[in-house]
């Protein structure tokens, strides 16, 4: 059996498939969300790492910092911020939203905050 593929469907589970090089038969290993979380807490990539771990990977991905919700496009934009300042940037927008009673951060909120706080480039 040879490792074939790893899939992360986005619902907190993980699938790894293995294939027999001679008969072509495939088997899959599935992990439930709890098992997946335990593996991810080790900071390792199943299937191997292609790029070195980013700084604060666990903290920036897995720590819920409290405060307002982030829309998915706002989250996507946040994920493009270099990880070593992502936590800080998230906090700045979070504090901004809290002070103004904004419950969800969207790209539009981020634009207004940036202009008001003079944070061009964040």
């Amino acid at each position: 059996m040879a490792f074939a593929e790893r899939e992360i469907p986005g619902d907190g589970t993980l699938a790894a498939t293995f294939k027999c090089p001679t008969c072509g038969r495939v088997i899959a290993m599935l992990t439930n969300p709890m098992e997946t979380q335990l593996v991810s807490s080790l900071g390792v990539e199943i299937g191997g790492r292609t790029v070195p771990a980013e700084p604060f990977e666990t903290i920036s991905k897995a720590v819920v910092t409290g405060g307002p919700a982030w829309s998915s496009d706002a989250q996507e934009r946040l994920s493009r911020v270099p990880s070593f300042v992502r936590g800080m940037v998230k906090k700045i927008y979070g504090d901004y939203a809290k002070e103004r009673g904004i419950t969800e951060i969207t790209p539009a909120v981020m634009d207004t905050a940036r202009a008001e706080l003079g944070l061009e480039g964040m």
Partner: protein
Amino acid sequence: MRTYHQLTDPDRSGLADQIGAQRRRVAEQLAGVQRIVAVMSGKGGVGKSYVTAHLARSLARSGRAVGVLDADFNGPTIPALLQTPPEAAAPAIGLDGVKCVSMGHFLTDGAPLSFTGPPAEGFVWRGAMEAAALREFLGDVKWGPLDFLVLDLPPGMERYLALCDILGAPPAVLTVTIPTAESRDAVRRAMRAAVERGSDLLGIVENMVGPQFPGTAGDDLAREFNAPVIARIPFNPSPSVWDEIPLR
């Protein structure tokens, strides 16, 4: 039925290598750190964070390069004690030039720490996530050269054990107790764990010494563990008491 050890393929995940790389990352980041000191007590509210912050500041005033790693993720009090600017990148610079990293810098004001993950099994994976956070505080912060890296640990033994594993060697330990028998018994457990893991006991700080808390915890523990009481700190001490602590 085949087992893991019969896999013929090379280990593409390379988990052992990945863990090895994490270890090297921590070792490289801490290469310029002369001494790592864990502040422990086994009990909350005895003044670990207070002692950590004031001792760190005193060391810094005497010309040492000092960093504080706030390892109390659920009750991070170091940023307030060192008055670090709220939006600084890690490590933040606090009073007297002490460098500091704390979960407080990553959380919205006053928000408790919580992780994304399946809530029903939180008790299973929470400790593992906290150990991962500790590893990142050690391996991903550019501490630079330091004479002392002081770690403010939460009550209990778990963070200390994770620290030993991540560092690959037990850190030196400073314990904080208040004079009462109750505190002594809690701190004794912490000190036993530290001795079992092979930590060097730097000494005991007896805090909140005064009529409010009668007892002889400091002397009792000193006798039992053959470690010195390196300071007796009253309530609201004068700043000079920190400079008299023989840890330089």
